[in-house]
């Protein structure tokens, strides 16, 4: 045994940094979850803090917490309903283009927004939607309408989040589908044409069945993300006017934990959301095993 380990000493040495980094930045924070059950102050040791029972879980009775959960689910479900079919549709459209140069151009351009941060997206939104001088309000003004304060209103918040999410990621998410389409046997299309099937019939009976496995994998993989809404996207757009609909689990944890110092309570909220996503991931894996015959790992 020791001889064998010695034989692989270089390999162990190579793996070691990764193991240490995970220990420091993943495993110790996992042990730090005990803060959820303790009376912890920053600057003191977690291990020396006194146990507080379930005192940190009183947020469960906080009506604001219920709103936060509702906001999270509302946005993530809406994002899923719009964001899941959009790339499939776009990939089908791109696939119908017969001019290769134009096709490549559309692909390059549609992938582009993925590479910009949500902060840059927030600036774009500001330049278009701001009250004084925003492009959209300029047009509304020219048409004789009253300017709309898009970025400072609760009712416009969700449409803005959904739309900017679509703008940023739809093109990027077509990559998998377009790759799946290229693996479809061209002879299928040829024989369909011989039998007189039109374009729409070909899409329905050949292309869509061809990418169905990819669709089901993407569907399964997106289930665990249903309870998280990217803080990256939400935080830059949040302000006091839209707070009532914009506050989601991640921003709630951030505000109470890092900004106001309720470490125990914020850890407890985080623990709850980690547990739910763990359950979702594991059950998704079971589901995938049942449907596809193999799990995700």
């Amino acid at each position, binding site marked *: 045994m020791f001889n064998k380990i010695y034989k692989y000493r270089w390999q162990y040495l190579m793996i070691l940094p990764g193991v240490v980094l995970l220990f420091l930045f993943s495993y110790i*924070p996992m042990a730090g979850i005990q803060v959820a059950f303790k009376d912890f102050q920053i600057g003191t040791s977690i291990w020396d803090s006194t146990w507080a029972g379930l005192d940190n879980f009183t947020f469960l009775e906080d009506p604001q917490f219920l709103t936060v959960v509702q906001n999270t689910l509302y946005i993530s479900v809406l994002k899923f309903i719009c964001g899941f079919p959009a790339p499939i549709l776009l990939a089908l459209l791109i696939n119908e283009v017969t001019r290769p140069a134009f096709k490549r151009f559309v692909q390059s351009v549609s992938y582009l927004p993925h590479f910009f941060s949500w902060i840059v997206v927030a600036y774009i939104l500001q330049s278009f939607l701001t009250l004084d001088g925003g492009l959209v309000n300029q047009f509304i003004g020219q048409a004789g309408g009253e300017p709309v304060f898009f970025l400072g209103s609760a009712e416009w918040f969700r449409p803005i989040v959904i739309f900017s999410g679509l703008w940023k990621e739809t093109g990027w998410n077509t990559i998998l589908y377009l790759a799946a389409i290229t693996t479809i046997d061209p002879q299928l299309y040829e024989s369909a044409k011989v039998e007189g099937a039109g374009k729409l019939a070909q899409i329905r009976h050949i292309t869509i069945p061809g990418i169905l496995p990819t669709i089901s994998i993407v569907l399964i993989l997106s289930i665990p993300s249903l309870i998280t809404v990217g803080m990256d996207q939400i935080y830059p757009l949040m302000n006091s006017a839209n707070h009532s609909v914009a506050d989601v689990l991640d921003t709630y944890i951030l505000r109470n934990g890092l900004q106001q110092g309720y470490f125990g309570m914020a850890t407890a909220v985080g623990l709850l959301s980690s547990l739910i996503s763990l359950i979702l991931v594991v059950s998704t894996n079971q589901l995938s095993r049942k449907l596809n015959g193999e799990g995700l790992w």
Partner: protein
Amino acid sequence: MKASRGEKIAEYIIIILLSLLCVSVLYPFLYMLAISLNDGADAAKGGVYLWPRSFTLINYEIVLGNETIRHSYLITVGRTIIGTVGGLLVTLLVAFGLSYRGLPLRSMILSYILLTMLFSGGLVPFYIQLNNLGLINTFWVYILPGLFSVWNMFVMLKFIQGIPEALIESAELDGAGPVRILWQIIVPLSKPMLAALGLFTAVGHWNDWFAGAFFVTKQNLIPVQTFLQQLLAAQDLSAVLGSNNNQEALARSSQLQNITLMSIKMSVVMVSALPILCVYPFLQKYFVKGVLLGSVKG
């Protein structure tokens, strides 16, 4: 086979739709560029849509002349280079080490790594740990926590396992040790993969504003994206003009009257976005490959 009339029309409709999509992606950048190159007070009157009406470079002079912005750029470039090179190195080493199927305890180490993908301590315990390690308010808070990417490691591992074993075995017969095999066989063969993973890591570093906003309070440590995030909610120009290092710009107060918050914002955001717009066309062939390899189950 002739295309029917209906199909011809359908193709034109598709081309129009996709062209509109391209316009919707590209136009915002063109618009922001036009505003940033236009006199601020003039732009505020409206009507600047595609190109500047009253051309000026004053916005860029102010932005590039600002010490805070220049410094934040330095931080961003520094963390992008160090974080990407270091991250690729650690990821490559771990993946290579784990690619030896005969390695004792291999499956245990793999489970140890996989578990961190399924469950995490959450933001607050992570922050407490950064604090305990003394990383809060240091440059290394940008580098160390993300140095080992589990996801990239599994993609890399899968790629290495696809390299024919005969190549490695014959090198071993020639007396090459693992280190030589790594540098002389694995690295040259994985260049496209390393390029793709490096690209994603670099973009992640370039775009990250979160660490700068919450793990750092010293203004001289914030990256460009965090500066942008702070400026996003600014009500006046004090963030850009307030410090005393803009004497030169302030001296030209006649021009300064025409500066608006919006025109400054647009030039800062263009300055942060331009590098990505410039390198994007050259890196395209790499990232599609990276996504496809990453999507296959590891």
